[in-house]
C-alpha cells in the first residue's frame, strides 16, 4: 500500500518510513475516536490505520458508543473548548459524559495494546482504564487556545493522566498540560477519493448535477454546516465581490453523526441564501468524496473562513488541487497558507472579499500561488509525513532505537 505513494513523494522518503518502522514491528496500537464517518479524524484514521499495519505495526481502530444525549454533550464540550459560551457545562452534562465513559470502558477493550491513541474529548475519559506498561496518547484535533476555562479544567484532569498529548499547533497547548506535548499537524491522503485525480467528464457531470455553470467563476467553501465555519460570513464576502464581479458561490457540506446542530445551521444558511440562484448550498451525504473532489478541482478560488478551527484540512485539500486558498488568519489555517505564496490569510469578511476579487481577476496569480500550494502540501501535509510523525512519537515513548 505504501508503494502507491511513490507517485507523489520520492522513493527515498518511503524507504525512510520503512527504516523507521523496523523497530516497531509487532507493536500493538489502538486508535479510539467517536465516529467512523464524517469529519477529518475519521478520514485520517481510515488511511493511517492500514498504513501502520502495512509497516508491520499491529494497528486497530475502535469507535466509542453513545446516543443523541451523549453526542449533544460532547458537541457542547467541543464548542466550549473552541470558545466560551453563554453557560459552561452543567452537572447533568458532566454526569452524561461520565456515564457514557463508564459504559465505553466495557465496550472498548484497550488491555491487549502497547499504545492507545485517543482522539479528541469524546473518548478522553477512557484513560482511567490504563494499565501498567501501556502508553496512552491523547490526540487533540481542535483549537483549545481560548476555551471555556471550566470545560477545559474538566478535561485537563483526564489529559494529564496520559503519557503524552499531540496538538496540531503550539498555540493549542494549554498551560495546564503537564505531559509531553508533541506538535503534529494532520494530513490529507492523495489516494483518497477526495483527493485523487479525476476525469474531466466526471467533474463536468458533477457540476451539471448541481446546476453549477462551468463557464463562470466559482468560489467554494467546503465545510460542515457549523456556525464556527462562518458560512454566513462567506455569503457576505461573496455579496461584496458580486457587486463588481460575476461569480457563483458554492457552500458544500454534510452532517456528521456526532453533530446534532448541523441540520439547524443548514436551514439558517438556506435562509441567508434567499433567492440568489448563484449561491449553491449543497448538503451532501458524508461519503460524497468524489463530488467534493470535483467541486474543489472546478473551483476558481477556494475559501476557508472559520471563526475557530482545529486545523481545516479542506485547506490542504484545495491546495493539493493547485488552488490558491483565501483562509482565516487563525489556528491551523495559517500554518497551511503562506500569505502571498500559496494563498492569502484574511482577518475579516471584507478582507476575504478583497482577496477573492484579486484572485478572480488575475489568472497568472492564481496559477503561481496554486502551484506553490500543491508543493507545500506535497512536502508538509500528506499522510506519509503524518505517519512519520506518529512513528517518531511511538519510538520516543516506547524508547526504541
Amino acid at each position, binding site marked *: 500500500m505504501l508503494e502507491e505513494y511513490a507517485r507523489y513523494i520520492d522513493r527515498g522518503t518511503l524507504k525512510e518510513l520503512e527504516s523507521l518502522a523496523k523497530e516497531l514491528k509487532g507493536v500493538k496500537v489502538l486508535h479510539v475516536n467517536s465516529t467512523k464517518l464524517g469529519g477529518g479524524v475519521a478520514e485520517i484514521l481510515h488511511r493511517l490505520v492500514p498504513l501502520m499495519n502495512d509497516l508491520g505495526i499491529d494497528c486497530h481502530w475502535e469507535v466509542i458508543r453513545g446516543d443523541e444525549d451523549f453526542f449533544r454533550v460532547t458537541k457542547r464540550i467541543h464548542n466550549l473548548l473552541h470558545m466560551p459560551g453563554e453557560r459552561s457545562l452543567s452537572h447533568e452534562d458532566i454526569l452524561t459524559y461520565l456515564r457514557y465513559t463508564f459504559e465505553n470502558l466495557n465496550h472498548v477493550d484497550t488491555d491487549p495494546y502497547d499504545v492507545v491513541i485517543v482522539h479528541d474529548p469524546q473518548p478522553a475519559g477512557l484513560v482511567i482504564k490504563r494499565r501498567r506498561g501501556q502508553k496512552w496518547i491523547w490526540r487533540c484535533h481542535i483549537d483549545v487556545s481560548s476555551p471555556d476555562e471550566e470545560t477545559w479544567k474538566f478535561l485537563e484532569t483526564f489529559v494529564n493522566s496520559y503519557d503524552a498529548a499531540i496538538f496540531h499547533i503550539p498555540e493549542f497547548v494549554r498551560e495546564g498540560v503537564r505531559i509531553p506535548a508533541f506538535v503534529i499537524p494532520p494530513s490529507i491522503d492523495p489516494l483518497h477519493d477526495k483527493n485523487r485525480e479525476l476525469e474531466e467528464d466526471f467533474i463536468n457531470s458533477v457540476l451539471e448535477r448541481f446546476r453549477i455553470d462551468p463557464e463562470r467563476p466559482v468560489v467554494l467553501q467546503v465545510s460542515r454546516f457549523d456556525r464556527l465555519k462562518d458560512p454566513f460570513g462567506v455569503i457576505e464576502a461573496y455579496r461584496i465581490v458580486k457587486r463588481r464581479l460575476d461569480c457563483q458561490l458554492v457552500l458544500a457540506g454534510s452532517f456528521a453523526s456526532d453533530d446534532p446542530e448541523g441540520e439547524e445551521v443548514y436551514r439558517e444558511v438556506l435562509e441567508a441564501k434567499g433567492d440568489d440562484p448563484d449561491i449553491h448550498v449543497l448538503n451532501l451525504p458524508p461519503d460524497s468524496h468524489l463530488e467534493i473532489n470535483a467541486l474543489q478541482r472546478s473551483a476558481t478560488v477556494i475559501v476557508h473562513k472559520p471563526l475557530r478551527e482545529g486545523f481545516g484540512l479542506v485547506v490542504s485539500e484545495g491546495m493539493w488541487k493547485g488552488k490558491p486558498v483565501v483562509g482565516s488568519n487563525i489556528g491551523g489555517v495559517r500554518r497551511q497558507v503562506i500569505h502571498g*505564496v500559496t494563498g492569502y490569510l484574511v482577518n475579516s469578511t471584507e478582507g476575504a472579499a478583497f482577496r477573492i476579487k484579486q484572485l478572480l481577476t488575475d489568472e497568472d496569480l492564481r496559477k503561481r500561488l496554486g502551484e506553490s500550494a500543491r508543493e507545500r502540501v506535497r*512536502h508538509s501535509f500528506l499522510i506519509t509525513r503524518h505517519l512519520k510523525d506518529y512513528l517518531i512519537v511511538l519510538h520516543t515513548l516506547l524508547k526504541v532505537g
Partner: protein
Amino acid sequence: MPEFRFRSELWTAQYTGVKVSTLGAFLKALREVDDDTVYYHLYRNMFEYHFLPTDYWNSFSYWFAENGFPVLAEKFSALDLIECVCLSDIREEMVRILEREGHSFDKICKPFYFIRAVRRTVDLGVVARDLSEFKEGVKKVGIHSLFYHLVTSRLVHCSPVNDFSRWLTEIGEERKAREINRIDLISYSLYDLRNRIIDILES
C-alpha cells in the same frame, strides 16, 4: 576502500512549554533552551519550505519581521549556517546580534513558541564502496538523507566538512570533496542540491 553508509534524519516537533511575548524574554529563552530547540527553529524552513519563495530563512526571522524588528529579521536570516559548525557558536552569534541591534525589549509582541526537534536517525541500508555506488546512493536516497549528511553531520562532528566530502577525501577525490563542501546549501532546494551533487560527481 572505506564504505559509506547512507543515513537519514527524521524529525517531529515537541513544544518546550517556553512561550515569550517580548524581545527581552526571547533573548533570555534563546540563552536557555536546549540545542535541539535552536536547531528546530534554524533549520525547519530548510527542511520544510526550501522549495518555496519565502521571505526569511528561519522561524526567528519571521517572528522578528511580524513584530516590527525588520533589521533583526534580516540579520538572523543572513546568518551563514554553513559556516557555523557548532550550534553553540550560532547561538552565541544570535545573542550578540540581539544585544547589539535589539531595542524595545519590553514591547509586547505576538507570542513565540519554542519548539524542540525530536530527532531520529535511521540507517537506510544503502552502502557505497566506490564512487559509482556513491553516485547511485545519492540518486536513490530521500532529500532528508541529503540534509543529514550535508547539514546535521557537520554539527554532530563540529566539523567544517560534511559527511560526503569527508568520505570523498578518504577515497582520493579531493576536488569533488572540495566542490561539494563549497555549495551554498541555502541557495538551493534540497532537490536542486541533489542534482548539483550528481553533476559534481559526474564531472
